[in-house]
């Protein structure tokens, strides 16, 4: 491997991290704006930065939509007083936010976000690493994210964080099963490929080729499990602020809390991306039957379409959050083990039979 190639790879990775970080910062803004809209408020609309905020008309509009708010939020995390409780296990206490943050950043290496035509004239994905087992990699690495929460809860050495950590670990284990089971019919449908790019290419033609049309139940189970995995309402057992103060991050503040926070939103974005790739046709537009135009226009268009699909899904996450109340802990466990898992297994068996029948008929 030459040095230039290596530097190019590192640059790409850093760029991607920057984009995902920026997206998660703005996801926080979106969350606040959606919450405000649902509650008839305007949301954050004051933050200005000197040059852009002072522009005649645009500056005013940008300020009103709160475009500079994430900057203020980030600066606040950096400059706040760093509370450090005496009773914590220092090493794990500091390690936990990083452990929560890194898997979220790692999963995106295998996530394709667009398509281009390479020199050979074939469609190729825009991705850091086009892994043959991309979806498995995402599942494996994102399952490591739970350590951040469990460790944070344990290392805080106080009651509420500890309860939050325990709950999170049990919840993650339960819902990962349903998630994997819901995934299998999709993989079977596309000829057993575990490559995300192949799965998207399989649904390229038009909207009625999307997996969500053929496998609504798989999509539903996957989505519910995704909510549980990302610790979002109605499943945010790990930090249920009404009964556990702030759950696992009760003892955290300033930048450490910021890492947890950004990590959570990065998880949501990655999860929405995976759902889009698997069920919503990835970067293909819903209506036009012929695929994207050739050349760089097509690439840019594909990235934009993918971005807006993910954005819509992230919005859906927030919409759900500000609509539904939280499940009780035993209800969460019951839903995971007694409802979703049998449903997922039944779904898997049904689709195995259907796919076998289709193969029989076609022969």
């Amino acid at each position, binding site marked *: 491997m030459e040095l230039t190639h290596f530097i190019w790879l590192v640059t790409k990775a850093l760029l991607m991290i920057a984009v995902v970080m920026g997206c998660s910062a703005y996801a926080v803004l979106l969350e606040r704006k*959606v919450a*405000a*809209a*649902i*509650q*008839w*408020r*305007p949301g954050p609309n004051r933050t200005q930065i000197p040059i852009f905020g002072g522009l005649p008309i645009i500056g005013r509009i940008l300020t009103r939509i709160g475009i500079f708010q994430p900057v203020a939020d980030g600066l606040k995390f950096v400059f706040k007083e760093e509370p450090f409780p005496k009773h914590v296990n220092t090493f794990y206490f500091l390690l936990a936010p990083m452990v929560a943050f890194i898997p979220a950043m790692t999963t995106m290496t295998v996530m394709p976000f667009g398509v281009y035509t390479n020199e050979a004239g074939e469609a190729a994905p825009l991705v850091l690493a086009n892994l043959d087992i991309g979806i498995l990699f995402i599942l494996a690495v994102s399952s490591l994210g739970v350590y951040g929460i469990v460790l944070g809860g344990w290392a805080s050495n106080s009651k509420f964080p500890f309860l939050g950590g325990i709950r999170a670990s049990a919840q993650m284990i339960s819902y990962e099963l349903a998630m994997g089971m819901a995934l299998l019919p999709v993989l079977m449908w596309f000829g057993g490929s575990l490559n995300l790019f192949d799965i998207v290419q399989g649904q390229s033609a038009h909207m009625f080729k999307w997996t969500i049309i053929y496998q609504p139940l798989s999509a539903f189970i996957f989505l519910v499990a995704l909510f549980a995995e990302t610790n979002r309402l109605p499943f945010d057992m790990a930090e249920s602020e009404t009964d556990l103060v702030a759950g696992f991050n009760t003892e955290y503040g300033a930048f450490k809390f910021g890492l947890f926070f950004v990590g959570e939103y990065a998880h949501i974005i990655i999860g929405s991306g995976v759902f889009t790739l698997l069920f919503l046709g990835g970067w293909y537009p819903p209506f036009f039957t012929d695929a994207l135009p050739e050349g760089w226009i097509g690439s840019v268009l594909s990235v934009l379409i993918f971005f807006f699909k993910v954005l819509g899904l992230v919005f859906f996450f927030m*919409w*759900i959050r*500000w*609509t*539904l109340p939280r499940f009780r802990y035993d209800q969460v466990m019951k839903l995971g083990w007694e409802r979703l898992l049998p449903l997922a297994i039944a779904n898997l068996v049904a689709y195995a039979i259907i796919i076998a029948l289709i193969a029989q008929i076609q022969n």
Partner: protein
Amino acid sequence: MAIKVVERKPLSLAERTYLPQIISGLGITMKNMLKPAVTLEYPEERPDIPVGYRGVPTLVKDSNGREKCVSCQLCEFVCPPKAIRITPGGIDESSEDAHVEKAPQEFEINMLRCIYCGYCQEVCPEEAIWLQNMFSLNGLSREELIFKKKKLYELGGTLPDNHFKWDKKQDAEKAGNAH
């Protein structure tokens, strides 16, 4: 009163999946999302203050520009938190308002103590002290929030006085039927 036992009906299958309820809930939040915001953006927009609002107590002058307060000290007595302090004083003989006889030499309202009860306004025989519609009060030091006479007149301004009690008295005196 008879006790009525309400039968708890078992949930139907659709209800047990929670889905219809979730969807209707999503509909409600979406409807609310499309409604305009009702927030008052405070420093730029000010609320409409209702008539009779009792804000910061101020001293007022009558339409001739004469200070109404005659330093009777009733407000000082009635004030529950003892926020008012008056130093009574006379009026210069040569002045036009000499017939009023008295005016406060110094008038202090300690806004750190004031509870906006409005007793001072109620008790004032001269209608000299008014709780006006100013509601946002702030300062950088404790001294700044002990309002002196000058500041109180600045805040109060002039209110029309329809009685002209002292002028009438003077007229009556001149006409020779003082009581």
